[in-house]
């Protein structure tokens, strides 16, 4: 089977070289070979934080100095690595999509040709963990106002997936937001509060439903 090579990928065996003349990929190419240019089979990149991690004192609310690249550089790199039409998904969004597919599979399960791969089950379980009750639409509406302050889609998804309890936690774990700390601290605090209230309410509702079911 001939695969179209994407930008930055070596040719697969017997495949055609298909570097786009425009210099960037308009549509992502599904490349069956993961071999990179130069015949490297494996690439390993590390921030090398093992050598530079501080020992001993940790400040609970302090921000750690890290060797992370400049926030915009990291995000730009991620966007360069992915096809242009890629959309970041929150875990709850992915859970809804995958859950819908799984429900369809129940109807299609008579066809032996159609089977779900192992990575589907593990992906669905991962997406559902802790967020199986929250709807992506609701979470999206709560976090949407942060976009006005320059928070990107990737950062919003990371905030949603973190399930953080405090603003300090978010800034510590998503270093790219530090640059906008002054602008977004208060809106972020409000959004996190709303998300926590939502999860607590849904947990209470679930407990109530369970107790009703047991009676």
């Amino acid at each position, binding site marked *: 089977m001939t695969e179209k090579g994407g930008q930055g990928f070596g040719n697969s065996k017997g495949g055609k070289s298909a570097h786009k003349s425009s210099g960037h990929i308009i549509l992502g190419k*599904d490349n069956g070979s993961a071999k990179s240019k130069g015949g490297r089979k494996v690439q390993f990149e590390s921030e090398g934080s093992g050598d530079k991690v501080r020992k001993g004192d940790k400040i609970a609310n302090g921000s750690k100095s890290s060797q992370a690249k400049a926030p915009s550089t990291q995000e730009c790199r991620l966007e360069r690595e992915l096809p242009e039409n890629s959309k970041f998904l929150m875990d709850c969004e992915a859970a809804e999509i995958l859950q819908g597919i799984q429900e369809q599979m129940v109807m299609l399960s008579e066809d032996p040709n159609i089977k779900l791969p192992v*990575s589907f089950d593990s*992906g669905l379980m991962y997406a559902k963990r802790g967020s199986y009750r929250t709807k992506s639409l609701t979470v999206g509406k709560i976090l949407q106002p942060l976009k006005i302050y320059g928070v990107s889609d990737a950062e919003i998804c990371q905030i949603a997936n973190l399930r953080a309890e405090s603003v300090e936690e978010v800034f510590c774990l998503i270093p790219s937001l530090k640059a906008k700390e002054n602008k977004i601290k208060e809106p972020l605090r409000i959004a996190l509060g709303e998300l926590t209230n939502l999860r607590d309410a849904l947990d209470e509702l679930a407990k109530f439903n369970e107790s009703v079911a047991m009676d």
Partner: protein
Amino acid sequence: MFFHMILERNMHLHPRHFGRDLRDKLITKLMKDVEGTCNGRHGFIVAITGIESVDKGLVLDGSGYATFPVKYQCVVFRPFKGEIVEAVVSMVNKMGFFAEAGPVQIFISNHLIPDDMELQLGDMPNYSTSDGSVKIQKDCEVRLKIIGTRVDATEIFCIGTIKDDFLGVISDSGQTS
């Protein structure tokens, strides 16, 4: 992190499938060939969500097979450096511990585990603090940061750390959801 993207693939179809069900055969073959695979650029292709377009086929000289460019939408899971993930511990040993986040396996070296946690061997090896208040063992959930990724032909393997603020055990094995 999960992504939704549009990818393209050239599907080869044997002449015996030419007929009124050609499109269905193409889609079935696409799902079989693509779902569950992994490559370095896109990560794990978890599920195909739709078919964007199927262009005209081209018969290959000599073989009779036809090639159809198919654009499809899919959900992929791709970890990236610096990402914070919540993973389930799958194995603990003296080198560190392994954890799984979806289809991705992550290794956390003992050098990247807080210094106040030590390995306790036994029936259920674990890393725990001296007072036993925090314990990392099989099936417990941990929040970690990915600091490196290795791309293989069929999988992505990551290196992680829990030696930073707000990282570490989320829940014990008995409370894993």
